[in-house]
């Protein structure tokens, strides 16, 4: 690791390693830095996330990819002692603006977590939760949403006969797909996935990946993954982060076949560490 030295400061002007052509950006990150207390976790990150594509964040543990992901829906607000500089624009609006409604932001940018976290409620109530907090409570409004979301998450056929049983009785992979159904039930524009398959077996992982490819027709997906095969299989764009900095960002094909930066090449070829 020593041979790379500290990450270089972002050079002025467009860097070919960092500025892929993105037609319709939905999220624009500009000079974003983040500190946990006094420890700097993200260093001046600038990037654009394309609409209705899958963008993957890769990098070694502790490189800040999850932290960056959690900036998009301001989940870092829940942690004490976090300080953020720079801006993120979601559909043109600065999400860190004091007048930004965090709850509205989060219903526009859904999230699926590393460890599946269904609520200790029935399957039906898990999916309906987002609608209920938005004030939709009538059964005849909820029923179609629940069915549509569960179908969208490829879970409907497995659970349609036990919608009112506890969600905690599902298998790990089913729980994770339920969390995806829960996230898409409120029709967000973006779905953030934080290592959604790291706790799943290969069969369940394949199902989720298939699902992601289907979902990208309707949603913008941003996925954090440790698994480079996964990133190359499903994503359209890939960003490589290292020590809190964005090292390289580009179309997945280009980045995996033709990495510009030496660090990227070392990491994706497994020569890393």
């Amino acid at each position, binding site marked *: 690791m020593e041979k790379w030295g500290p990450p270089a400061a972002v050079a002025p002007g467009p860097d070919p390693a960092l500025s892929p052509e993105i037609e319709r950006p939905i999220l624009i990150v500009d000079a974003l830095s983040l500190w946990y207390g006094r420890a700097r976790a993200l260093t001046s990150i600038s990037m654009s996330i394309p609409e209705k594509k899958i963008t993957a964040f890769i990098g070694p543990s502790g490189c800040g990819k999850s932290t960056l992901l959690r900036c998009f829906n301001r989940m870092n607000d829940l942690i004490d002692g976090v300080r953020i500089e720079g801006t993120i624009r979601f559909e043109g609006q600065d999400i860190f603006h004091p007048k930004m409604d965090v709850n509205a932001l989060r219903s526009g940018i859904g999230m699926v977590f590393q460890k599946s*976290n269904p609520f200790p409620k029935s399957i039906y109530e898990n999916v309906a939760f987002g609608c209920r907090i938005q004030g939709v409570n009538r059964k005849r409004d909820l029923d179609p949403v629940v069915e549509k979301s569960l179908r969208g998450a490829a879970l409907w056929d497995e659970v349609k006969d036990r919608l009112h049983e506890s969600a905690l009785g599902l298998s790990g992979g089913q729980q994770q797909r339920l969390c995806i159904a829960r996230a898409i039930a409120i029709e967000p524009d973006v779905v953030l996935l934080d290592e959604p398959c790291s706790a799943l077996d290969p069969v369940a992982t394949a199902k989720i990946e298939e699902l992601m490819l289907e979902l990208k027709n309707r949603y913008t997906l941003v996925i954090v993954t440790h698994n480079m095969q996964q990133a190359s299989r499903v994503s359209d764009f890939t960003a490589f982060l290292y020590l809190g900095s964005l090292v390289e960002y580009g179309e997945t094909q280009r980045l995996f076949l033709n990495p510009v930066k030496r660090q990227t090449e070392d990491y994706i070829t497994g020569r890393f560490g």
Partner: protein
Amino acid sequence: MNARRPSDFPGRALTWLTGGTLALNLLLIAGLLALLAVNGGSAFWPRELWLFTLKDGTKVLGEIEREEEGHRVQVEVGNRDLTGADFRWVDLSEIASRLRPNQATLLERLEWGNFHGFPVALRRGETTVAEGPEAVWAALPQLLALKREEAETLERLEKSEIGGVNREIEVLRLERKRRPREAEISRIDRETAALQSRYEALVADLDARRQALLTDTLVMRDASGTEKEIPVGGIVRAVRPNAMGGGEKLGLYLSRLREFLLDDPRESNTEGGIFPAIFGTVMMVFLMSFAVMPLGVLAALYLREYAHQGTVVRAVRIAVNNLAGVPSIVFGVFGLGFFVYVVGGSIDRLFFSEALPTPTFGTGGILWAALTLALLTVPVVVVATEEGLAAVPRGVREGAYALGATKLETTWKVVLPAAAPGILTGMILAMARAAGEVAPLMIVGMVKLAPALPVDGQPPFLHLERKFMHLGFHIYDVGFQSPNVEATKPLVFATALLLIAVVTVVNLAAISLRNHLRRKYASSAV
């Protein structure tokens, strides 16, 4: 494998020590329960009446209470009005003969306890209806049923009619105090006078009925030949235990058990039932739960979910835990000083000022007792709720936030339901503690004998200011404060058994509710 390592021994010894200690604990509890079950359960089983003839010619008729092998026997002879004592020791060497006469009759009376003897005659007014033991025994049941009916009518009249008139008079008296206008006063006085005359008529009617109850008498002869006239209206039950078969005995047992569970106490609690005490205990525990749940759960929510987890919160947590160790009588004194005198006194001054100086809420009552116990048990609920909240995974909260839920929605709709089993555990512990607590209640509203239940047919139906009876205090009162301790010993066992049964039933109800919730949110496969 034959050579055992020397280091094996301490481990095995410890295993035996821990296992043995557990077994000892279980044995102690099982022994206690068995003692209560045997003594309490047999309290109502009919025993045979023995007729002892002593060498000096005296005759003793009674139930054998206990026998000291080879020495003497304790006989429950009854007939307190004749002999002055219920029990008598008889030396075995004194006894000339023992008999179990079929005609020996046991009367359970409203007053003076049991009577043991032989029926002689049955009289209605001046005329003798039946003579001789068998004739009397044949004629008695019909008359007994008639008299019981009359006695019940009398009691109903006393409670509802007289009580109703008294209440109306009291309402008028308070109205008179409140509105001193001339026209009103004369109207009120008129109405009061009318009620007063109605009251007097009722009292006269009741007196006549009471007299009628006493006119019919049963003449009994005790073992020594003394005759005694006993009003049939004062007899609860007449049995010939020596002539009874197994089925009849079981019937009598069940009938006595029913009386014990469902009737009011008599003879300063030494006889009759303990229904008011059961009712008071259960109702007080439920009132306590209603008070302690919001108090404890909201406090724990703030401590765990909202407060900054710093030194202050840690100090508060320690203080709450220590609160559980404060002697309960201290809470009782606080309840008396704060709830009864300050809160109750203020309520009286504000809403019941016309009744003063007679206190309404400014004296001990079931509400104040429940609130005092709620204060006593709040640490239990706080601690259990905090544990329940802490056990809700962080991921679940984040999941709710990520769907756009506010802190309130997350706490209310996700965290609290997930913590519900833990919260209910706290409630179960609190109820168990409250049901067994006696000391603080003695000064905030528990009484030896409550004239009325806290719930009845008079508006507003729920009388939270009323005093109440309690099983725990009943045990103490009957066992150690009654004039006839020896005779009430079985009742003490039975009451203790019942208290344990009540606590168990209440707990089982709460536990099944908790398990239902657990099943609903089953956390099986993850």
